[in-house]
């Protein structure tokens, strides 16, 4: 029988002890003595969130396919256990073997959102691994970061030995092989990192120096080791259909956020919305093969026993075989009681048909993400959705029986005016009016419209990386304008307005475009008790503000500052394929309110063709012609 790291007494004193015991269906059991390399994969948030993440399941599968490697998992202990572990000095342990993380060769941490940074420090601290990479010794695990936040790793660069920039499928095998070889040759930690830094896509922060100008902007980013590259190239898996896919994903005992089979149908997005980081860092769009997905769906449902399957991708409606795939899933599995959970789809005849088939019309709602309230601002952000699309789609769905609509908007977008904000209220009202065009006797009760706004946070590697972000007060004023405008509408009683917290977004903004100076702030905020910042009940904004102040850093330098065209960004040493020149051209086009066509309509020369595949090439393998370039 497996021995647990925590005593019965501790496990029975904390909430949901199942978070800490491992042993789930499809988790891997190996004898640590039989392997050469032990890898601990971490999602720095609570178990139920971390277990819902597809990326870790993919990497877990890739690494465990190797006989010489044992990949295990660890998640952030919840606050109750966190306290006990500190009091009793219990080292953080991996779920499978229950062995201390500090005994592993690697600790891999996925960075999905900036607000997890204090949890990263918690993981290191509880593992009894020195928080700063420079303080680690030969026996400490090599700490590697991955995930979307590595497109600006600088705020947390001091805490990591290296970052894996790009998609995990391509290079983990090479990293493990290199590590094994180095170990056999008795190489030191520094020598190993030097070897790893020579694998494409790997960034070892210690080998790069950053110099600042007097105004605190960056003067230069220069390598201090002759053996490492000047620029780190993003890794891209071009063959998604033959790439690893975990057909035996782990099934948690407790209900995870995603309690279902998740099928990734494509990677990347053709749309080019100018606020969207995912739309840039996952280029080019690559689709998975239909037959391959059918096979995966079947295998995954039978290996997990899940009662639900959902499709995962950006802009799912753009997947070429969506119709075939969804009809296949319905025909093949819905009679077995498997629920098909639809991604958000463009509203048309097809989506209305499938929504009618797999959802209860009375309970489900239509979702639109216009993101901005006016056509002018939608052109600025290059959101292709028009008012006509929304009204027509809503009208069709209303006629088929739906009466609930969810609308998602962002506030604080570049160039936003009062008129654009008021447009959110006007558009919501227009949708409600559409509903009441239906004759009374054919209506399905009252219409319900929920409009939500989030605070726009400019992200690295987007055309808006040069933009100024609103302050909290500006945002709150805008909320007020919108609330007032909604109250003026004819159908105000049918419109519900939800909004996100502004404080959290301001901090996210500072961390997203921060530089290495910020690492001290993160460290101090963590030491002051900040943890689980993405959980509003634990978010301590005052402590963060203190940490900035004590380090003499004005966080608004990172948020509320329009950047100059030639400013060197902290993340400029990363080459994502999409060029800075393209992003700047898009920024200028945004200011001119000019729309850029999507990748299927026309190639706008972003630079992603360098990867040699995906949407950039036609079926015959010919590169699409670039229709305009800046």
């Amino acid at each position, binding site marked *: *029988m*497996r021995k*647990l790291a925590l005593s*019965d*007494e501790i*496990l*029975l004193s904390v909430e949901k*002890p*199942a978070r800490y*015991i*491992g*042993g*789930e*269906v499809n988790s891997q059991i190996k004898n640590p003595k039989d392997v050469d390399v032990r890898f601990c994969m971490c999602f720095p948030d609570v178990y139920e969130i971390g277990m819902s993440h597809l990326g870790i399941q993919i990497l877990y599968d890739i690494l465990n396919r190797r006989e010489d490697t044992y990949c295990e998992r660890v998640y952030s202990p919840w606050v109750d256990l966190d306290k006990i572990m500190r009091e009793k000095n219990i080292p953080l342990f991996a779920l499978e073997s229950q062995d201390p993380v500090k005994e592993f060769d690697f600790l891999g941490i996925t960075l999905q959102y900036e607000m997890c940074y204090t949890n990263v420090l918690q993981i290191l601290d509880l593992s009894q691994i020195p928080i700063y990479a420079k303080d680690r010794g030969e026996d400490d695990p090599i700490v590697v970061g991955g995930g979307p936040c590595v497109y600006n790793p600088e705020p947390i660069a001091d805490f990591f030995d290296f970052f894996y920039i790009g998609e995990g499928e391509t290079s983990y095998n090479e990293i493990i092989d290199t590590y094994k070889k180095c170990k056999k040759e008795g190489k030191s930690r520094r020598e190993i990192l030097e070897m790893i830094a020579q694998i494409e896509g790997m960034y070892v922060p210690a080998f790069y120096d950053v110099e600042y100008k007097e105004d605190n902007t960056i003067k230069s980013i220069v390598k201090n080791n002759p053996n490492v590259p000047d620029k780190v190239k993003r890794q891209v898996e071009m063959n998604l259909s033959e790439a690893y896919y975990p057909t035996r994903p782990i*099934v948690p*005992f*407790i*209900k995870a956020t995603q309690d279902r089979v998740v099928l990734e149908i494509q990677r990347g997005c053709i749309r080019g919305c100018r606020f969207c980081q995912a739309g840039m860092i996952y280029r080019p769009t690559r689709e998975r093969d239909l037959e391959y997905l059918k096979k995966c769906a079947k295998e995954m*449902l*039978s*290996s*997990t*026993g*899940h*009662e639900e399957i959902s499709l995962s991708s950006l802009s799912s409606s753009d997947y070429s075989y969506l119709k075939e795939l969804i009809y296949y899933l319905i025909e093949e599995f819905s009679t*077995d*009681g498997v629920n098909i959970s639809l991604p958000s789809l463009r509203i048309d005849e097809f989506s209305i048909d499938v929504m009618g088939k797999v959802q209860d019309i009375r309970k489900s709602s239509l979702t639109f993400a216009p993101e901005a309230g006016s056509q002018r601002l939608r052109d600025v952000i290059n959101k292709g959705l028009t008012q006509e699309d929304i009204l027509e789609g809503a009208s069709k769905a209303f006629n088929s029986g739906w009466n609930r609509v969810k609308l998602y908007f962002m506030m604080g977008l570049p160039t936003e005016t009062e008129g654009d904000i008021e447009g959110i209220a006007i558009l919501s009202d227009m949708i409600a009016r559409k509903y009441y065009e239906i004759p009374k006797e054919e209506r399905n009760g009252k219409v319900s419209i929920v409009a939500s706004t989030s605070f726009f946070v400019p992200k690295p590697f987007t055309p808006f990386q040069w933009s100024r972000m609103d302050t909290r007060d500006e945002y709150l004023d805008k909320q007020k304008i919108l609330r007032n405008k909604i109250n003026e509408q004819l159908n105000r009683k049918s419109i519900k307005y939800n909004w996100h917290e502004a404080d959290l977004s301001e901090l996210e903004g500072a961390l997203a475009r921060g530089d290495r100076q910020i690492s001290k702030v993160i460290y101090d905020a963590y030491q002051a008790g900040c943890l689980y910042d993405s959980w509003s009940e634990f978010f301590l904004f005052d402590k963060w503000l203190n940490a900035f102040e004590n380090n003499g850093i004005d966080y608004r330098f990172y948020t509320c500052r329009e950047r100059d065209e030639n400013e060197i960004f902290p993340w400029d040493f990363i080459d994502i394929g999409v060029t800075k020149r393209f992003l700047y051209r898009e920024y200028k086009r945004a200011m001119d309110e000019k729309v850029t066509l999507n990748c299927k309509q026309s190639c706008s020369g972003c630079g992603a063709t360098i990867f040699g595949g995906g949407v950039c090439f036609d079926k015959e393998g010919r590169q699409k012609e670039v229709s305009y370039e800046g």
Partner: protein
Amino acid sequence: MKVRIKFQKYGAMKFIGHLDVMRYFQKAFRRAGYESEYSKGYNPHQIMSFAAPLGLGITSDGEYLDAELVRAEDPVIMIKKLNDVMTEGFHITGFKVLKDREENQKAVSAMSLMDVADYLVSLKDGYDINSSIKDQESFKKVFDKFLEQDSIDIVKKTKKNETNVNIKPMIKVVAYDKKEFQEKLATVVKETPIKAVNYESVAEAFDNGILVYLQVSSSSAENLKPELVMEAFYDYLQLEFNKFAWQIHRLEIYTRDEETKRLIPLDENER
């Protein structure tokens, strides 16, 4: 068809709550290739119920789960197929198809059939009771004295008030080793229990050797948890009860045969 599954729950799985065990079995049926029947109505869900949900931290040799499957095969095949999809800590030991409602006029749910249950309560290593109880022998002496009281009163708290309840009549059988317990059981069960138990117990054994076998009431009319017995024992010793000190392990759940008034394990009765 309605089926009753008997299983063991042990090791780390004692930390999985009963609602999650239900979710676990829902998925396990699917993995094994058997579909459940779904309830009709607004929120269809698989039809499933436990004889007696097991508290967190308790292990068991005798858990009963009633479910409704679209189809089933021979019990031997079912047990094998289900065990093939189990994880460590769950082991299926019995499977039977229950009679249809039409043939069986009386209430058939496992929960409603329950009458008594057997438990093994062991002191975990690293814990003491008091300085005078050093081993099983000294424990037996004190525990016997505790049981010899005219009445064993505990305070039962409900939402509205507190009442004193004498739990002594609810403690049916007490023994201090397996052999003694089996001999005593033989006088109350319809058939010898050894015949039914063709699997090894998963109860954890502790070096200190202090343990007690208890058979207690477990019906809807009269229900006693073994924790309460131990709490009353600490009261008797004028000690504060330490709930973490004892590993409770359920051995079996019985129904009472109407004719002979003797006990039958839940999966062996005819209904």
